[in-house]
């Protein structure tokens, strides 16, 4: 079966610094992949390549059979227009480390913004769906609250609902709990666990090894812009083959 996401030999440098080196990764539909690795190892850069917030220097990104950012014709690659790239991004939901909710809109307004403005969905319909999503993330009564009136955990759950409102095929999470107070981490992970159980394809950058062990189908360990090791949680987290993976995991668990 064709994977939902195929990353083929991605390279990305920032100045002289090589953030990604020949990174390839396939993610099947319905699969949950957790990416772990030390700070600066290129996890965020890899995730951002998938929805084209970062443009790789070389390599190809395929999402749902579509080449990201380019159209191939007669042996040449033609750069897509901004509007076409925006359309491609709709298939992918993204959840940020620092939430990035729109502070001038209510929780409901944050969730309906994409469906109404981008998908041109009728407002009443979009609001009904947004309320259902808020209920799904446990925030039914917070529809009219502004982000500044919500706790970090609540904001991140609204952010997840905002991404889901676009009905994405794929969800990207960039350390969704690392800006949260410890007691708020659980409520966000619970929503993500439910989402994984519902069959959503997810790529999750995380330091929560417990979550990875429990929810991930596959764990990817990155170091210095390279995928060092990939396998089931049991393989990578409990019995890592590579010395660098062993060192990282024992450092995190220490």
């Amino acid at each position: 079966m064709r994977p939902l996401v195929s990353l083929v030999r991605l390279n990305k440098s920032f100045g002289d610094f090589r953030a990604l080196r020949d990174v390839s990764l396939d993610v099947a539909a319905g699969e949950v992949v957790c990416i772990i690795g030390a700070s600066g190892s290129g996890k965020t850069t890899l995730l951002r390549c998938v929805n084209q917030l970062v443009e790789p220097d070389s390599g190809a990104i395929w999402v749902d059979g579509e080449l990201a950012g380019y159209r191939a014709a007669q042996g040449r690659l033609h750069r897509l227009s901004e509007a076409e790239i925006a359309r491609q991004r709709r298939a992918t939901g993204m959840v940020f480390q620092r939430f990035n909710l729109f502070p001038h809109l209510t929780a409901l307004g944050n969730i309906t913004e994409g469906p109404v403005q981008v998908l041109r969905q009728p407002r009443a319909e979009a609001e009904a769906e947004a309320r259902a999503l808020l209920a799904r993330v446990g925030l039914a009564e917070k529809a009219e609250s502004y982000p500044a009136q919500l706790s970090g955990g609540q904001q991140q759950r609204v952010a997840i609902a905002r991404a889901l409102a676009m009905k994405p095929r794929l969800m990207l999470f960039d350390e969704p709990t690392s800006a949260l107070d410890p007691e708020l981490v659980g409520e966000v992970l619970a929503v993500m666990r439910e989402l994984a159980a519902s069959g959503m394809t997810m790529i999750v950058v995380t330091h929560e090894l417990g979550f990875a062990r429990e929810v991930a189908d596959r764990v990817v360990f990155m170091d210095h812009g390279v995928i060092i090791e990939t396998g089931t949680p049991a393989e990578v987290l409990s019995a890592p083959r590579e010395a660098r993976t062993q060192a990282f995991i024992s450092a995190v668990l220490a």
Partner: protein
Amino acid sequence: MAAVPHSDLPDLSDHVVVRRMHWGRWAAVAVILLLLASLARAFAVGQIEWQVVGQFITAPTILSGLLNTVVMAVAAMALGIMLGVVAAVMRMSSNPVLQGVALGYAWLFRGTPIILQLLLWFNLALIFPTIGLPGIGWVRTVDVMTPAFAALLGLAINQGAYTSEVVRAGMLSVDVGQYEAAKAIGMTRLRALRRIVFPQAMRVVIPPLGNEFIGMVKLTSLASVIQFTEILHSAQNIYYANAHVIELLIVAALWYLLVVSILTPLQMLLERRFSRGSAGGR
């Protein structure tokens, strides 16, 4: 003050707090009152015929001048803001040609005096006797470049050059995460600007723009040099005839003060409107 038990510190609980006397403040008030009184007396006994002020404050010529001033200020500011927004967006785009055009625009119109620009627009016929577009038609420039139109162009284009920097500062004040979140839900750059960035930039942009609007109300008076009949021009026309120079200048000053006084509460209303969702309330 509560009593401190088990201590030989004095018990202050029944003492009354005496308010500090601000002698310096009282002295300053006295000096200011004295100055104001002598100023009032000077104006009262001075060569000002206050009944002339009263007579002309609602004169038709003055009122139509006032209307021209207000309409011109609002129109030039509105057009200036539009130009400023366009220039700021061009300046912030990744297209070097657009960036260059925006930079050149600000350089040209911030680099020359506004009065010179007004005179240039008004005298455009000397350079281009006719203006128009091929295929659409041509008109004589003198017919189009009325004082009002020249004033509108001059004031708005000049204002746009300044406003673009204010708008750009507002755009820069919005976190990059907001642009990214907007892109991530499939917005194009322009839609992200309109729906996400500008509403947030407003909070930063309104106070300086309020300032510039007040400046614009007074800047319209420069258009009197190209025969635009705003309020100062109307006042001058009257005092050329009746020689009540100071009285008519006072009439104009009173109207300027009134208009500017109305703008401040309007600005506060706008600021409240755009502070929704910011920490501390809606």
